[in-house]
């Protein structure tokens, strides 16, 4: 069961640089003892608003989603590391809950 989800927005770069940045991120995750379950590419798109990071204004970004299992104590260190990475525009770690079952939802149950 995925415990956490990292929604990563990387700078719009060429393919080898993007892959290098991803590799760095996943390696830092594994170094801290996390088990990476899934890596999804949500495509490169225009950011919804201009994001300024590392003294640079970004208008385009590459969106990635990384599911991983990990201990709870590594997250603050991981976020710190990601904020310092120049290629990362916005990292966000979310807890992943799969219990959004629609029992007791209003309305008829099939």
């Amino acid at each position, binding site marked *: 069961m995925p415990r956490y989800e990292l929604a990563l*927005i990387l700078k719009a770069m060429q393919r080898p640089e993007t892959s290098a940045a991803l590799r760095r991120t996943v390696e830092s995750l594994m170094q801290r003892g996390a088990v990476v379950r899934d890596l999804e590419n949500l495509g490169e798109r225009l950011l*919804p*608003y201009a994001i300024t990071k590392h003294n640079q204004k970004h208008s385009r970004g590459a969106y990635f989603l990384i599911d991983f299992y990990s201990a709870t104590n590594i997250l603050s260190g991981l976020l710190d590391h990601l904020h310092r990475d120049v290629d990362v*525009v*916005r990292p*966000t770690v979310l807890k992943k809950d799969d219990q959004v079952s629609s029992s007791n939802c*209003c*309305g*008829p149950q099939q």
Partner: protein
Amino acid sequence: MLAFRGLKRIHSVLLQHGNTTYKTIPAGSLTVTSHVVQHKDDTKLLKMENPYKEPQTGCLLCNVTVDFKNTQLLSQFVSPHTGRTYGRHITGLCGRKQKEVSKAIKKAHSMGFMSVTHKHPQFMKDPNICGIKHLD
């Protein structure tokens, strides 16, 4: 003595004739079942399920998972002019789903998935599910 016995007999006769509603209660028990029996007979016809009951309809997002990644769905509950989230009286969602949608929209805003001040132009042509008509 004789009078006593006579009284007893009269008493027993009176009991038998007068109190027909009460069953002959055996010596030990003191149940009051007779009342219930009578009431059941009276109310047998009145108890019935409402024949005019309409099937219970759920809100729009019943059985639909709401996610911060699904910005197209979330944008349907957002104003196209200002990007503000619509209230419950406009969306028509139930309490739980409205909360989920508003939380997902806020998450998407902070994570850089959805715009705050406007609606994505790609989603402007989506069908209008909220009960609001814009003077366009």
